[in-house]
């Protein structure tokens, strides 16, 4: 068949929840445009019920993911990088459209995002040594502090940096064993929704990352008040919304990573990981102190 006769096949962008690709429960969609205002695709306009379902999926996945060995989590995050590398051209195109970048600039962004996965893949089994440790105590005990994941984390992804920013907020959350419910950039959700396809083929258990597109102002308050969400990252919320969400999040003492502007091209550091860790300290008795002051 000649090219002129072929009908192009458009992709239906769908949510990524619990390892599956559902449409919004509400059946709603909204138009996504490129930086020049040209129509790109329709994206699902998620409702609070989609958000609720995503929290259920994330909670269900938490036990398995937080219980997996740090080494295994690292391998899976590295696998995400491998899968992303293989689909680079698609993401370069989507990022170029979404952010109005040239092909070369968009390629740099996608490569940085791949590298970001690798960076966090390396951290999974090292963060414990950095923020945990053995504490010297004045008694016959081994005293060990270890970082533990907080639980289900809601992430309001950055509005402008639709892909590198997105990866930079998701990867640190899941690297340490949390599970995430992500509200993608409202204006440019397509790279995020495509990232769901990459995650689904990377051995990442379903429900560890759940990606919703739509209005942060619509879903955010419900997620911030949700009693089964343990933490919230407000990076992509505007000032008014961030204030509202912080108030709602106070009710069950969620951990809050406050809204801030960030240059995602720089070195990520570890503070996004430590924001969603809790320290567990265990005292192991070693027996009574001998005359020398030590039992061992």
């Amino acid at each position, binding site marked *: 068949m000649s090219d002129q006769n072929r009908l192009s096949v458009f992709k239906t962008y769908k949510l990524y929840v619990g390892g599956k690709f559902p449409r919004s429960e509400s059946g709603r969609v909204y138009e996504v445009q490129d930086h020049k205002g040209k129509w790109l695709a329709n994206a699902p306009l998620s409702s609070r019920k989609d958000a609720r379902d995503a*929290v259920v999926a994330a909670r269900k996945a938490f036990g398995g993911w937080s219980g997996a060995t740090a080494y295994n989590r690292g391998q899976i995050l590295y696998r995400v990088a491998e899968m992303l590398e293989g689909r680079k051209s698609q993401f370069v195109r989507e990022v170029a459209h979404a952010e109005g970048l040239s092909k070369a600039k968009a390629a740099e962004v996608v490569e940085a995002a791949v590298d970001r996965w690798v960076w966090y893949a390396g951290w999974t089994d090292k963060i414990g040594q950095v923020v945990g440790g053995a504490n010297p105590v004045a008694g016959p005990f081994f005293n060990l502090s270890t970082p533990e994941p907080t639980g289900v984390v809601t992430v309001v992804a950055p509005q402008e940096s639709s892909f590198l920013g997105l990866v930079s907020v998701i990867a640190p959350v899941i690297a340490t064993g949390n599970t995430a419910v992500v509200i993608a950039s409202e204006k440019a959700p397509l790279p995020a929704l495509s990232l769901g396809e990459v995650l689904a083929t990377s051995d990442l258990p379903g429900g560890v990352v759940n990606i919703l597109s739509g209005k942060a102002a619509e879903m955010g308050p419900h997620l911030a008040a949700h*009693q089964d969400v343990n933490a919230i990252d407000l990076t992509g919320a505007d000032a008014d919304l961030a204030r509202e969400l912080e108030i709602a999040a106070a*009710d069950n003492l969620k951990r809050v990573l406050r809204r801030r502007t960030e240059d995602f091209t720089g070195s990520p550091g570890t503070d996004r990981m430590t924001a969603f860790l809790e320290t567990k300290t265990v005292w192991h008795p070693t027996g009574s102190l001998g005359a020398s002051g030590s039992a061992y």
Partner: protein
Amino acid sequence: MPTTASAASAFADVTTSESALRRFLHGLPGVDAVGLEARAASLGTRSIKTTAKAYAIDLAISMIDLTTLEGADTPGKVRALAAKAVHPDPTDRTTPTTAAVCVYPDMVATAKAALAGSGVKVASVATAFPAGRAALPVKLADTRDAIAAGADEIDMVIDRGAFLAGRYLEVFEQISAVKAECGDRARLKVIFETGELSTYDNIRRASWLGMMAGADFIKTSTGKVAVNATPANTLLMLEAVRDFRAQTGVQIGVKPAGGIRNTKDAVKFLVLVNETVGEDWLDNHWFRFGASSLLNDLLMQRQKLATGRYSGPDYVTVD
């Protein structure tokens, strides 16, 4: 309206012999399986919101037979369950109590003591639950023990082997004998294990057989097999109790059990009840849910309605 009187006399002629009983049961109209499932599915699409939903949630909580039927049941677990039945949500004392706690016969005394003065009933499974594979004297002894220990309700299983082999009179006589053992002391629920009866026609026959033999309640399942309560088989049983009351004036209760895990499902069943048999059955004297995990979901939804915030499993008991 007569409520608990046995309907045995109305059917004295059909229960005299095996052949007469078979003729009667096989003479019941056949079930339109496609129509039944379509009806159940279409009633499941009703949208129940706001105040109606709050009413449905409280009604459903008050209809639950909070059940623990595990080999690993301990007195401690039964006491914990009893405490939950009395105060399902300790943070909100306006929550209704459940209808009953359902346990094995040896746990009845423990449950009875834990529930004393609360108005929550104790139901006990009996008659060699869940298989029902024991001789009649054993089944009667099982029932007697449970009642002696203080059970207010007896959940018996029918002998599915005899039923499927066509020995209807044997099943009838067993139910009658257990009913006689219960007398006025306990209400009798008859479990058909609909998942093992293969066809809707069989479920309709079993329903009539149980009602004629003196059941106070007909119950879908034990919760121990793959297929438990479904909207379709519950609808069929509701139609049976409706027709039975029209014919005899005797009202019989219905209890779907097993597989009802969330509020949405429970509300669907309540819609079935209201649309099929009407408000007379919208009461925990006439309709029950056999469930355990359902209660937690109902409580989480109740908290959501009360506070506007989604609740989570951290705010209900683990049981």
